[in-house]
């Protein structure tokens, strides 16, 4: 495995995690880190453990070995709701918006936190509505009635309500039209510009290489390769070897 040093202080450090679903051993000692404000891609074929890595960081699955550190603090065994409040946002692969809640109510689930003033709530809402004007138009509509692309926007906007230090973004462009894909890329860049770190799981290799500073490649539940995104090309032998594209 090649190594790429990072000059940025690690925000998230994942060290040697082993995760099981029942008796199935999914992650075999995954180690990676994401610096503050950094965009890091996580590539790999289907079923190699990318989504499980995100779920483990988010506290939705607890590892049997290894540790997760957030800004140097041990958070391995914390429940997901505490991690969300510590600044980890999660946008799952299948979006999982609250289908019967309106767009506004979906956003409120992340806004109604202790210590957030009404003025700050309004600022955050104004910010996401500026990013995603269509959500402002549909604010009274049930989440389940939105199109796939709109649901993806809502899922990202909802995570932004938590004012996260890092967003775990799981296959945000899956099943979206090319116009939406480029919009998602712009959002990733905008969040990066605001200093939000992103751990981006994607099948879309060109987008991942373009949007990320560094890339990890996973195979069979472990990280096999780690490089600066600028050192890799879409037709790189490493990409071909691990992703078959």
């Amino acid at each position, binding site marked *: 495995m090649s190594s790429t040093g990072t000059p940025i202080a690690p925000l998230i450090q994942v060290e040697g995690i082993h995760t099981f679903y029942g008796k199935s051993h999914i992650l075999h000692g995954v180690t990676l880190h994401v610096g503050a404000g950094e965009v890091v891609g996580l590539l790999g074929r289907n079923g190699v453990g990318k989504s499980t890595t995100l779920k483990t960081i*988010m*506290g*939705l699955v607890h590892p049997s070995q290894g540790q997760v550190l957030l800004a140097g603090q041990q958070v391995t065994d914390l*429940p*997901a*709701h505490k991690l*969300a*409040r510590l600044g980890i946002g*999660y946008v*799952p692969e299948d979006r*999982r*918006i*609250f*289908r*019967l*809640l309106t767009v506004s*109510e979906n956003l*409120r*689930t*992340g806004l*109604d*936190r202790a210590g957030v003033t009404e003025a700050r709530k309004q600022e955050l809402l104004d910010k996401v509505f500026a990013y995603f004007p269509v959500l402002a138009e549909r604010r009274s509509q049930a989440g389940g009635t939105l199109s796939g692309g709109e649901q993806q926007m809502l899922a990202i906007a*909802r995570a932004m*309500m*938590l004012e996260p230090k890092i967003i775990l973004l799981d296959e945000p462009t899956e099943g979206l039209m090319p116009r939406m894909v480029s919009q998602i890329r712009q959002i990733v860049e905008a969040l990066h510009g605001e200093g939000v770190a992103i751990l981006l799981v994607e099948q879309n290799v060109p987008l991942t290489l373009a949007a990320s500073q560094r890339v990890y490649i996973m195979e069979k539940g472990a990280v096999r390769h780690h490089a600066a995104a600028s050192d890799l090309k879409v037709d790189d032998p490493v990409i071909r070897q691990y992703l078959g594209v």
Partner: protein
Amino acid sequence: MGIPWDLIIIQTVNGVVTGMILALVASGLTLIFGIMDVVNFAHGELFMLGAYMGVVVLATSGSFWLALVIAVLVVALLGAAMQIVTLRPLLGRDPLTTILATFGISLVLQNYALWQFGPVARKIQEPFTGRFNLFYLEYPYYRLLIAALSGAIIGGFWLFLKYGKYGIWIRATTQDRVMAQAMGIPVPLVHTAVFAIGAGMAAASGVLFGPLVGVNHMMGLDWVLKAFIVVVVGGMGNLGGSVLAAIFISLLEAYASIWVNPSQAVIASFIVLILTLLFRPTGLFVPTPK
């Protein structure tokens, strides 16, 4: 034979009154199922404990309304403790474990009540005894008050779910427990709070219904059985559906008892239950998915 309109109107009033009490019991049951996937077999015993708590506080203080408030608070706290101690550790396990656990709790609570209060039924005195003429009957105002209060409690709770911060937390958790956690919602706390609210609603119905029947350690059984029918017919986890189903089932039984005796009229509910399970197992009052 002509249509007995007077009987039909009397039975409509009776059906709505019973339906509102049943809706109050079933609302808690369906809420608990919706959010935790727990079929709470001890729900009838929370209804019964509420009624007994009403008996005790009424005997001590002489105030029916104080008895109602204290019964709700005490049983809600008991419900919260029950959820934390027995159900929280079982969450996510085989549903059979929670069914057995709640069934066990129901037996414990029934026998506790028998030991503590004995087998003789106790009476809760209604807060007022006024009556009005309904055809040939002197109908108690208190029955109408029960329906109004039950409606007010359910309506208040609906407004809380719809507009309150914690109401949105409850709805989000009901729809997607995992994602609710990822949004920072303390899901274990929400589960406990919902169980406590459901228990409190059961206790409120126990105290309100207490003056109409004797309070005894087995009184919860009938109600929980009917509440289960309501929850299935209304759609598991569907609050609005449960209210409609409670009124529908109660009206059906009330009308049936015009022509057959009340114990035979109960069969009508079971027929509806069986037909629902056969032809629309998601519930009669659930919108058809588009």
